């Protein structure tokens, strides 16, 4: 059964189409990622799913309940962690947790084992006002508060935005634990590398879903030959490389360059020669690689951006 069923969903703000005919199904027990750049419509979609916003057309069912008619039933069954910290900063960690358990008619004690993984890191600060916690701690408290009533579906809006690398990894580990406790997770992010952490991913841009697949499935859909190039100062040759005749696209990937070739006959040798011709000297380390999900996304996002 689909826990979240998004069907032909559209939403406009004035002339701007925030969501354009979106269709997504999230299955029970899945860790589902919604990936897209800023302004893609992720938050709008999440606000509709969490019953905070009504769509213009189409519908969303969460756990079989419609967000328009049965929003009351949905609200009791989901946990929501908004993009901005929105707990009471003048209440302590403990008071926030007790409050959010209370409004769902639950107690902290009965669901403690569910949040133990998150909460044990917060326990030393339980009498500290939430506003005085560090960014990572705030996230963990928000996650605890969203989980304290043992929701069937956990919905997170960009939980890793503005969080340091260590806390990001910690947060994803916590999400795995939560998933293993049988909770379905719907999470949005602007970071493409986080797509790999999800069971399935929807790629969204300018209000349109460009595809739904597993990270592996997405990577296999990459249609061209891809080369990973390393050379000192290669970024300063970017313009010249992009002007090469077989260049579909070229972009920096960490300290390396990913070169997408339009020519199926391309080999590491032919590419090395081309790079030398445009003046790239010294050691050039080139190997052909399998595309990752990020390569696929970059391709899709640029193509979609060019289309519209």
């Amino acid at each position, binding site marked *: 059964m689909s826990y979240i069923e998004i069907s032909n969903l559209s939403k406009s703000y004035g002339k701007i189409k925030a969501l354009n005919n979106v269709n997504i199904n999230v299955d029970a027990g899945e860790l589902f990622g919604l990936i897209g750049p800023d302004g893609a419509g992720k938050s709008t979609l999440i606000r509709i799913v969490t019953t905070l916003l009504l769509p213009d057309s189409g519908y969303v069912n969460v756990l079989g309940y419609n967000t328009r008619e049965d929003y009351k039933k949905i609200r009791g069954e989901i946990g929501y962690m908004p993009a*901005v910290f*929105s707990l009471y900063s003048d*209440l302590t960690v403990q008071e926030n947790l007790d409050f*959010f358990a209370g*409004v*769902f008619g639950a107690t902290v004690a009965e669901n403690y084992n569910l949040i133990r993984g998150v909460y044990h890191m917060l326990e030393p600060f339980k009498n500290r006002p939430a506003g005085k916690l560090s960014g990572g701690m705030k996230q963990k408290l928000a996650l605890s508060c969203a989980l304290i009533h043992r929701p069937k579906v956990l919905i997170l809006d960009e939980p890793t935005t503005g969080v340091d690398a260590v806390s990001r990894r910690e947060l994803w580990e916590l999400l795995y634990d939560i998933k293993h406790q049988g909770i379905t997770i719907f999470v949005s992010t602007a970071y493409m590398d986080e797509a790999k952490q999800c069971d399935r991913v929807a790629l969204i841009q300018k209000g349109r879903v460009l595809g739904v697949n597993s990270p592996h499935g997405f990577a296999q859909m990459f249609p061209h030959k891809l080369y990973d190039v390393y050379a000192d100062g290669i970024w300063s040759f970017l313009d010249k490389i992009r002007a090469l005749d077989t260049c579909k696209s070229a972009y920096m990937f960490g300290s390396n360059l990913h070169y997408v070739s339009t020519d199926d006959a391309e080999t590491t040798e032919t590419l090395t020669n081309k790079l030398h011709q445009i003046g790239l000297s010294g050691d050039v380390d080139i190997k052909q690689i399998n595309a990752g999900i990020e390569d696929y996304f970059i391709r899709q996002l640029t193509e979609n951006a060019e289309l519209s």
Partner: protein
Amino acid sequence: MKKIFILLQKEFIQIFRNKTILPIIFVLPVVQLLILANAATQEMKNIKLAIVDYDCSPESRGLIEKFTFSKFYAIIPVERSTKKAIKLIDMGYADAALIIPNSFGAMANRSESIKLQLLTNAINITSAALINRYTSSIVLDYATNATVEFGKPTISQASIRHWYNPTLDYKLYMVPGILVILVTIVGMFLTAINIVREKELGTIEQINVTPIKPYQFIIGKLIPFWVIALAELMFGLVIARVVFNLNITGSIPLLFGFAAIYLIAALGLGLILSTSASNQQQVMFMAFFFMTVFLMLSGLFTPTESMPSWANWFNKINPLFYFMNVNRMLILKGSDFSNLWPNFLAISIIATVVIIIAIKRYKKTS
């Protein structure tokens, strides 16, 4: 019920933890009552009076003595010339000049009607009227057959007695009014700001995805400020009693009964404002706007009887007007329910309408 309790608990923790709002709640009544009641007075003191005595009889000197001993007057020395006295007023050295005619003594003894002239600087109409009133009452007190002319003879010789506030103590008039302001500020402003703050911080969104129903949220928000505003009224009354020796002649439970209904209207207005604003700045500005209009027309500073008829029509829906009425009638006059019931009826209708609109608007916007 349990959820409302949880909301109330949270609200009270937050209010009592707020290091800015809490002191203000209790400092406000002290400062407002002490400063405002003393400063916003319409009593005249140190009226600079130039007396031109054309008579120089024992009788005229006796009259001048009356003014000299009065704490309300400072006598400005002037030559026996009306022109000089007018010049003093022109230059601002005198507020008024009293002209005693040369036949004053003789006529007073013969019990003939005497006419004195008072020239007043009327740039501030209120103070001019007060000076006229004070001066003529002193003259009348001295010589019952005297008339004071203000340019043309208009004043009647009727003696005036002020009921309920016999010494015309302006503080007794102001204090009940200031209590109304206090209760309204706590009720309307704090409620509105509190709800908008939840909007601003995004916490209301977190609440909205919980199974808390709008009515539970509203009750959880209104009850704390309802309680605090009533406590504020009690606190204000104690200060008024201790500092101004204000004697509450009417029934205190009746006063609180009215305040309790009035507050539902004030809190409801706060809630309506909060649904139309998205940040604290906006809501403060709106609350201030409404408060000023309601307050100006309520009769705190100027009697509503002298307002134009549109203002009196508006006052029919002005909750502050009724509270101001009831407060003064009950505290100063000792009115009971049989006199006050029209006010109770009106405020109950206003409170019901306001709270219904508020809940409807809240449901619509959330």
